[in-house]
């Protein structure tokens, strides 16, 4: 049974992703920011971690860099809804840090679930 961590400050988005992935039979846990997430992924290993970039209290980049130190970059997916500048900007930087995949919001659920499946399979 694979476990997935979803990190986003938007509760509805968390719930939506959680529902979408649970349908496919994954165990899904959520965190509202990088700080909460860190408490979770330090004690428990996740098969896939999906994180937003812009968040209060430790942003997505720090999470990504932290996970890179834990050699979990290939299990990390970055998601961004854009901000001051185009959303691409953030995701290009995220790619620079060698994340497994990046997705623009609104997320294409089919593609995302396919990617998650791919990562899990790759590590099986």
């Amino acid at each position, binding site marked *: 049974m694979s476990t997935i961590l979803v990190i*986003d400050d*938007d509760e*509805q*988005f968390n*719930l*939506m*992703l959680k*529902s*979408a992935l649970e*349908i496919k039979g994954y165990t899904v846990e959520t965190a509202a920011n990088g700080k909460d997430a860190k408490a979770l992924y330090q004690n428990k290993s996740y098969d896939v971690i999906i994180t937003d970039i*812009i968040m209060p209290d430790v*942003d997505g*980049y720090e999470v990504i860099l932290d996970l890179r130190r834990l050699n979990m970059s290939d299990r990390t997916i970055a998601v961004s*809804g*854009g*901000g*001051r*500048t185009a959303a691409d*900007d*953030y995701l290009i*930087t995220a790619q*620079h840090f060698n994340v497994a995949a990046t997705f623009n*919001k*609104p*997320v294409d*659920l089919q593609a995302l679930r396919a990617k998650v499946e791919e990562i899990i399979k790759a590590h099986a």
Partner: protein
Amino acid sequence: MAVHHIPRPVRRLILINIIWNLGSVIGILFFNGTHEVGTPTYIGRQILFGIQMFFWIRTGNECYSIGEEVAFSRHNKIRILLNGIGSFVVVTFTILLAIAPEAVTRINFLGFTPFSERPIFNSAILIYLLFLLPGYLATIFQLCKNGMHSINKAAAQTSSYMAASFAIFIAVAFAFDIIIPLLSGVLSSDSETQIGTSQILIWNQFMAMFLTLLCGQYYTSVSYKNKSSYWLLNKLISRMEEGIIYFDDNGQIVHANQGAAKLLGISSTSMKGKSIKSVFPPSLEFFRETVYNDIRITIGGEIHSFKIHFFRNSQTLTTVLNIAFFVDQSKTLLLQQNLKTLNDQYVEYTHDLVRYQDRLNKEASIKAEKENVLNTLINALPFRVWYKNEQGVYQKQNQQDIEKNGAREGASDDPQLISSFERDARDLGEVRVHPSIEDKDGKEITQDEANTLAKNGDVYGFFDNMYIPIIQGKPPYKTLCIKVDMTEQRRLEQERNMLREQKFIHSRLEELGTMCGAFAHDYNNILGSQIGFCQLAQEMLPEGHQASMFIAEALKAAQRGKTSLEELLNAIRGNANAATPAMVFSPYMIIEDVVKKVALTLPPTIVINSQDLDHSLKIKGIVASLDRIISNLANNAIFAMKKTGGTLTFKLHEQVLEKELITPYAPPVPAGHYAQMDISDTGSGMDSGTLERIFAPFFTTKAPGEGLGLGLSSALRLLKEGNAYFTVHTTLGKGTTFNLYWPLNTETETETKKED
């Protein structure tokens, strides 16, 4: 020589001689021979004889008179008495001899009859002895005395010579006329003829002529000698300011001159007869030839100092004249003292003169230097300066004004062309400042006219005019006028204002963009959730379920919302770029703006140096972008120096790259013409790992909460947009330098204008 210059006695002697000799001639012509007593011839002869005698008895007295006149200087009246008695006797004898000669012969004088024989001869001898000879003898005596007493040697000689001559003449005449005839007995032979003879005193008659000549000679010699020396000496002595006192061996004062009287304050007559010891201090040795200096004598309450010479002059063997010659030195001393004081003062004055001249020279050189400094200053001033006097006449112009206005020194402006501002300064003494717009000929124009000129591309200028009255006394005053060309400043101001406006618009639009971006981000999330849930619902519902259609519609509406949101964002971003197009500007203005901005919050340990900025360079680009880039780099630099302090240096200069510039950590810079901007700090520097990532967004070395790390990445993006490049050099612990290469604007100014 006129007759009246001959003294009276000599004149009388001449008269006597003439009559005497004339009488003799008449006697020889008409009464020669012997005549009987009582005959008219006899009587006539006796009368003639009497007349002659009447005159010749005076000869002796007249000789004496000459002596008195020239030498003895003491007149007596005995002469007149003798003459009177003599005349009476002569007349008596003449009458008696003419009328009754016998009576004469019978004259008995104490039993002695002197005229019993030769009555005529004897009576003549008697008269000669009584009246003529005493005069002669007195004269000889006086001459001898005079000769011995005289101070003047020449006068003494003359007197002696005279006395001798007199004595010889008189003795010879006496001998031949009286002694010899008496002794020879010529007269006693015939008593008849004795009565009638007229040949009496014939030698005396001739000698009288000699005596007359001699007297005349003596008078002239002695009187002129006296006049020229002795008399002159006396005159001098009497006029001298110095005192001279003669005194005899008893110390009795014989003579004192006017000078002595004046010096001693005693009249010379009252001094005469007094003792010399009553005049001078008695302790002095009066009878030795000595000189005393500084003898103090109190005269009229004042102490005077005298210098006194005493000396002696032996006059004869027995008489000696003592002389005191003295001078009041107090006056001389005073004068000497005055002279010394005056001399000292003169020396002082000459020194003063030299000092004054020195000071004058110094003042002159200071003045010249000041003038030189002033001239240099006013010529170095970057604006026009001139100076007019109260009448509005040009007094001074600096070089700039002469170049613009021509040399006008000494001239004045047409009163109608003088502005009211200048008149106010001159007449009211108020400082007036007035900005003006002038065409290329210096004529003042309005703003509208200037706008027209600008439209035609003609030249005009902005000026600030200042009229400063130099307040001194009453109006009108001198005026100092300053004319500053503000054209360039106005242009720069306009340019700066325009850049600021651009930046302002850009930042306002960007704010709006940021706000919309934040809104879009949130809204995107919301839409994302909605779309996600819709997709999940579609998955859960069985195929062909009635609700599927509604969910599909909800999904479609969410997609539409997303599209319109993107459109909104694009519209705002596009507008921001359209409102602030790329333009040509001077980058130094932006740098100076940034310096001003960061200086407001600069820690005191950090110094900004922005001296080296080339003002002539122009680049083309978005003003706000360069401002953002420079601001970011400056803020990072300041952050790097926060702990240690240091210097932040901005430089701007032209750079020509002949070939591509390749450096580590930065993309290559192609060859070209650039405005190079250097921003250097002396902060902590960066390691290679940091350097690799500096332009990544959100990359930051700052502690949480100090910054997002977006600065350098957006700077990089803006550089790309502006077609500009950068290089970076850093040393850990020493500092970092960023070099920006921004392509130079090579378009000409007119093209820029048309573009605007």
